[in-house]
């Protein structure tokens, strides 16, 4: 939608980073749709998240789907 609202706090935004001191709030194991959503929610709510996956890219099985029911939206 055109007018999505963005969360900001005087320019403060949250960054998930792999570098740094290896100290975070939550580790999410699994980068499929569920892991990705959990990571985004936690990051928006003020936590530092490490998202790990055994594959070279995130997406999980949902990335293999063509379309999703019942809207037939593209899965990607």
């Amino acid at each position: 939608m055109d007018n999505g609202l963005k969360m900001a706090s005087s320019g403060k935004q949250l960054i998930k980073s792999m570098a740094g001191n290896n100290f975070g709030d939550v580790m999410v194991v699994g980068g499929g749709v569920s892991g990705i959503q959990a990571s985004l929610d936690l990051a928006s709510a003020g936590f530092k998240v490490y998202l790990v996956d055994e594959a070279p890219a995130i997406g999980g099985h949902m990335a293999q789907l063509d379309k999703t029911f019942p809207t037939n939206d593209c899965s990607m």
Partner: protein
Amino acid sequence: MCTGRVDLAHVLRAFNNGVDGVFIGGCHLNECNYITNGNFHALKMVCLCKRIMDHIGLSPERLNMEFMSSGEGNLFVESVNAFVNNVKELGPLGRGEGLDETEFKLKLQAYSDMVPYIRLVDNEKLRIHFDQKEQYEEYFFSEEFDRLFNELIASKVHTYIKVNPVS
């Protein structure tokens, strides 16, 4: 931006530029992404514009509005392809209908100039709302609307053209 933002002025401008067809795609009726139901307003505008085109002598089929959701990509492809084929058969704007180019462009310009007035008429006299697309189409080609159109719009445009023969 909603299809409710699409204005009569935009459509007339496109045709005035020589475009052969205009296609508007909107959300399904009653499924407006905003709560505005702007697509109903767009549909009303499209019906009105078709009457205007008819009055000028241009085929109203050069303007089309279809409703679909973002998940219906196939429907979009079908609709657009069918529309493009139809417009190709109608031929270039005006020439396909056997009209004189200067004349129909003059009329298009006149209607464009009169858009502010037509908006007033729309706000005051066209406060209608139907649930189905077909009901809009029926109304805009009814005798009741004929009278309204002739009295309040067509005749005024006619006068405007007479007073401003060269656009």
